[in-house]
């Protein structure tokens, strides 16, 4: 299962998808992946930065949505305070 977490005032908004089912052609799983990709692009356009966060691995900044990612965390646009 993959998870997109978008940090917001609500804590974080989450979206789940099953990459294996999507690859196997499951329509619902494919729709979930497309929806996650759409939200990823929308948040990125607003200035958010995405990070791939997986246990035991270094955190990695990502520019493209990867359905194989276990977890992607998106941080809203930041400014110097």
């Amino acid at each position, binding site marked *: 299962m993959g998870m997109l*977490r978008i*940090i*917001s*005032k*609500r*804590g*974080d908004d989450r979206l789940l998808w099953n990459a294996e089912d999507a690859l196997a052609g499951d329509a619902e799983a494919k729709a979930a992946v497309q929806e996650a990709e759409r939200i990823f692009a929308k948040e990125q356009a607003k*200035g958010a*930065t995405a*990070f791939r*966060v997986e246990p035991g691995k*270094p*955190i*990695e*900044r990502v520019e493209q949505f990867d359905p194989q990612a276990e*977890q992607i*965390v998106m*941080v*809203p*646009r*930041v*400014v*110097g*305070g």
Partner: protein
Amino acid sequence: MNMVAVGAVLCAVASVVLILALGELIAHSSYGRPEAKRRAGELLRAVLTPDQYGHLMQRGHIDIASPSDPERTYRVPKGPGRVQVREKGRLTMWLCLQPLERVPEADLLVMHKLMIEADEETYLRKANRFFPTFWEMRERPELQ
């Protein structure tokens, strides 16, 4: 007399509108709600290592090693506040960086950790820098 009555009615209407507007504002602002805090706490636990989480609970901050400079660490506080940059264990400056959108406190910590570990260059470029004065260093030994 009529003017007084009209004034009283207008005042009452204005009060009701104000109360409704405040209610709407509170209802749509989930910042600070227990659910938002709980979710932010879950994300924080998922992102920090067990050691970092333990350190945070005990000391109220986490130290994040710079990926680019082995002698530099970033001391990120649990709550809102500036991040200390420490070189060889000594404070050299504070950094201030915040999201445009208000987020729960735990999410601020997540933001700092992700950016420092995976995008330190952007983090340093965007953050405002504040340097300790001689007097601050002398009067506040905890900074050293």
